[in-house]
């Protein structure tokens, strides 16, 4: 029997053991009479252990296993955007064409359309000495995104010929003096990070339009965030809000082991949503990976790598990319399932001992970098975590929190009160503000960091006062503390609560957020004055203009109206002194 062809020895769910071949680790092999796609994940004596990306029932020992010589790779080039793939980059619309609405097996599909013709505009010219990662030319991939065709990593030389014109992704657009031919498509093994020159410290916020995130717990472009929370607390809605409204140029959304209908929702909604930054459909900048809970677990394991590799490719073009993975816990469970089939020694709660290093390696692929071509690009990674019973002492939550710099802690209690986003403002954190404060001072307002500090401090004080209120009731507090409680309630109900399903409230730009926060502080200040001047707290907090100010945020054009509403409120508050 040749080295290239072996036979199946054993099948145990998604894990197949083959004899008679000696492949490389992570090599892709074809398994069984139907040629199911699999990847070598362990070599053990004369046995090769393979995780199979498709359902294995009905496969028998003795069926063939064939090497391909390739490692698990994705196809990179024009045509990634607006697409939806499974965990191993098979386009789901094409699977529908060949298989119908149910995903059966044994079908291969290219990640990129090899027939489609793109208009390539060369920006490099013959005689240029080009290095790995250099931009050769551009393609207008979607209405809003210019695709930069790059020299694949590892290739360099002097251009012999390059031409603009119409090409498909496999045709040569550029030939080097040494005869190397470069097409628009390149392949990259998903488990290997793509190279760059150096990492920079993040210094710009990723603006999401979500007030609690941007204002209190900001994520930086190139940063990492974890969102743990029990079911129904808002992980998916938050991730989708980020995919919709964050000011990244490219979005990679990975539905990893979650619901089918949620992906359908994204697919049906995004083409109709307008990107506030470009005025065009959000779909133009989006790539989706959908390996839902009922699709094969091995492909689920691969899906996060497929996603991050696509993200790196766009980063290499100099773009700011945001990647959401919902949920990383399902990815970890896929690892656990495969690992237990391998009969590996389990670590905590049955997860493999390498769980935390895999998590770290994944988040490490985020960051702001100098690309090979000298550009500045970034990947921000936001991972949802689904702790059993909502208890974050479990290994995936803990492994994630050790790495990420932002923790948005979702709280079942808040979700039950329908306080959304149900992010707990007392235990969530972001380590980025010190790095971002200069940006806020330059771009929003010089006192932005101080306003933030004041708002968080009020929330902390409220928590302490609440403990007393629980015992004695709020009427027992001195009036200035009662006012503090009112101010904090305003922060919660007017500022932190934000309805993702409301056309206007769903997004607030950062300037407006700042103005709203200032309005709250101004309410506090004016009220203090009024109280000192003899006004009754009851009158102060119930001035009608205050609820106009608060409810106004649901109306179109709030940013223009808020100053006027604020003036009116302050006037009415002052007037409460005269009433007494």
């Amino acid at each position, binding site marked *: 029997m040749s080295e290239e062809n072996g036979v199946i*020895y*054993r*099948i*145990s*769910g998604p894990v197949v053991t083959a004899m008679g071949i000696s492949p490389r680790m992570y090599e892709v092999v074809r398994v069984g009479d139907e040629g199911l796609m699999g990847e070598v994940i362990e070599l053990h004596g004369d046995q090769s252990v393979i995780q199979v990306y498709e*359902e*294995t*029932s*009905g*496969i*028998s*020992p*003795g*069926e063939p296993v064939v090497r391909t010589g390739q490692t698990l790779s994705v196809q990179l080039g024009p045509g990634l955007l607006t697409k*939806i793939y499974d965990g191993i980059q098979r386009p*789901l*619309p094409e*699977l*529908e064409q060949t*298989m*119908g*609405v*149910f*995903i*059966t097996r044994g079908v291969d599909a290219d990640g990129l359309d090899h027939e489609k013709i793109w208009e390539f505009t060369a920006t490099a010219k013959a005689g240029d000495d080009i290095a790995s990662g250099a931009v050769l030319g551009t393609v207008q991939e979607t209405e809003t995104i210019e695709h930069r065709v790059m020299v694949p990593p590892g290739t360099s030389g002097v251009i012999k010929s390059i031409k603009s014109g119409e090409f498909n992704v496999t045709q040569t657009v550029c030939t080097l003096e040494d005869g190397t031919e470069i097409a628009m498509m390149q392949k990259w093994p998903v488990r290997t990070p793509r190279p760059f020159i150096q990492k920079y410290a993040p210094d710009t916020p990723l603006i999401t339009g979500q007030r609690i995130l941007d204002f209190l717990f900001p994520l930086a472009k190139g940063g990492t965030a974890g969102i743990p929370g*029990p*079911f*129904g607390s808002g992980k998916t809605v938050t991730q989708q809000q980020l995919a919709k409204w964050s000011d990244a140029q490219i979005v990679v959304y990975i539905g990893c*082991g979650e*619901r*089918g*209908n949620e*992906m*359908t*929702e994204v*697919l049906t909604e995004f083409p109709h949503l307008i990107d506030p930054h470009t005025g065009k459909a959000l779909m133009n900048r989006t790539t989706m990976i*959908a390996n*839902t*809970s*009922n*699709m094969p*677990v091995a492909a689920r394991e691969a899906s996060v790598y497929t996603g991050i590799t696509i993200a790196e490719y766009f980063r290499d073009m100099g773009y700011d990319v945001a990647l959401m993975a919902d949920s990383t816990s399902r990815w970890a*469970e896929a690892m*656990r*399932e495969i690992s*237990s089939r391998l009969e590996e020694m*389990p670590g905590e*709660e*049955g997860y493999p001992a390498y769980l935390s290093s895999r998590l770290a390696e994944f988040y490490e692929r985020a960051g702001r970098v100098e690309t090979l071509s000298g550009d500045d690009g970034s990947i921000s990674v936001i991972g949802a975590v*689904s702790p*059993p*019973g*909502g*208890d974050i002492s479990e290994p995936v939550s803990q492994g994630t929190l050790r790495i990420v710099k932002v923790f948005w802690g979702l709280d079942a209690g808040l979700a*039950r*009160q*329908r306080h959304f986003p149900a992010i707990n403002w007392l235990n969530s954190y972001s380590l980025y503000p010190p790095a971002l404060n200069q940006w806020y001072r330059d771009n929003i307002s010089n006192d932005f960091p101080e306003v933030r500090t004041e708002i968080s401090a009020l929330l902390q004080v409220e928590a302490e006062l609440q403990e007393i209120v629980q015992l004695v*009731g709020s*009427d027992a507090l001195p009036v200035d503390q009662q006012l503090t409680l009112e101010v904090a309630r305003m922060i919660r109900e007017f500022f932190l609560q934000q309805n993702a*399903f409301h056309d206007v409230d769903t997004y607030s730009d950062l300037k407006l957020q700042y103005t709203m926060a200032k309005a709250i502080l101004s309410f506090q200040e004016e009220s203090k004055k009024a109280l000192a001047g003899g006004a009754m707290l009851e009158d102060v907090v119930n001035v009608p203009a205050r609820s106009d100010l608060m409810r106004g945020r649901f109306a179109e054009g709030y940013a223009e109206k808020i100053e006027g509403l604020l003036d009116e409120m302050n006037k009415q508050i002052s007037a409460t002194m005269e009433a007494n």
Partner: protein
Amino acid sequence: MSGKEYRTITDVKGPLVFLNKTEPVAFGEIVQLRLSDGTMKNGQVLDTSDDQVIVQVFEGTASVDRQTGVKFMGDVFKLPVSTDLIGRILDGAGRPRDGGPEIVADEMADIIGAAINPYSRESPESFIQTGISAIDACTSLVRGQKLPIFSAAGLPHNDIALQIARQAKLVGSDDDFVVVFCAMGITAEEYNFFVHDLERTGALENACLFVNLADDPAVERLITPRLALTAAEYLAFEHDYHVLVIYTDMTNYCESLRQIGAAREEVPGRRGYPGYMYTDLAMLYERAGLVKGKKGSITQFPILTMPGDDITHPIPDLSGYITEGQIVISRELHQKGIYPPINVLPSLSRLMNAGIGEGKTREDHKSVSDQLYAAYAQGRELRGLVAIVGEDALNERDLQLLKFADIFENQFLRQGRDEDRSINEGTLDYAWELLSNIDTKYLVRLDQKWIDKYHPTDKKE
């Protein structure tokens, strides 16, 4: 491949038998065992290699010995499907249980079921009126949703499931539902309760039952829901039926899963349940929905009993992570004598927003639902406070909310087992009437324009 009978059993462990030296046997293949006394048992291959095959035996391994003959049937588990399934009662392995003839197969369908391509799904958005106010107003169900009932021992989840099955309809459409009912390890008494009710209302003729009772083989439960869902898919996607799948009790299913895991000496996940239980459950629950180009639909109502009333137990927890919400039954409300004792606070319908509002139910539905929820939540919280500081410490607003919590439970939640409330008059108008017990100025979740239009006393005619 089939035909040859092996007598090479080496080990028997719990529901598993281990065999040596067979011809190649496929993963997932169906197996027949013949005991020395002629009894037949069925099983399925869980692990296969040149040297050893592991078979899980549905009927359990009692009386299996080394002389037991084992025959591999050359195929994975398939269910004969045809529209003749409607009106039939089958056992937990798909054999007639009603004394009727074998199902004449129109097709043999693989029971594992392939995943629906997420690209091929259609978003569920047609409101189903269940006639139960708590559900219709606060956790609205839509066609193609999977919405489990989280209950506990001794609570009337079966009554609620049956009431839903009887009353569920699309407003303004006469498409009827076909019910596929799947029993997993429930008692004969519970089962009879279901059958009698379905008979009483004539629904049985429009139903297909798969029945594995408490004294039926435990391991068989692992295939029963797969049979039911295979039948449902066939009826929905080949014959345009709208199918309502009720399965009970998922907790028994999960126990069987745990039993197999233990017998295989797998590394257990939380509380002894297998680490792959999430994926396994997803392969059932995700078989709900709508698909492009098909008229039919599958709506699922799995029922599970939470061990120790604990919603963080792995069975409700993993279910809640997969399903599109949950309806939570409360022991406290049940003990107060309220039927249906649905606690709307931890209940959720994730697909509600898509199914309600203008053109679907009524323009004010979302507002009313939010207001009911908020007022009830606050009222309930105040009960706790009153227990400590007494009612005297409450201001006017709090007193009204406190009273509203009782009104909500006693009038809005409480309804008859055969009381079928229409969404507009029966549920939403009624909600307005009850909300009018609270001063309008405290009803902050209601848009002024809906108050002007629907408030029984404050509306502007």
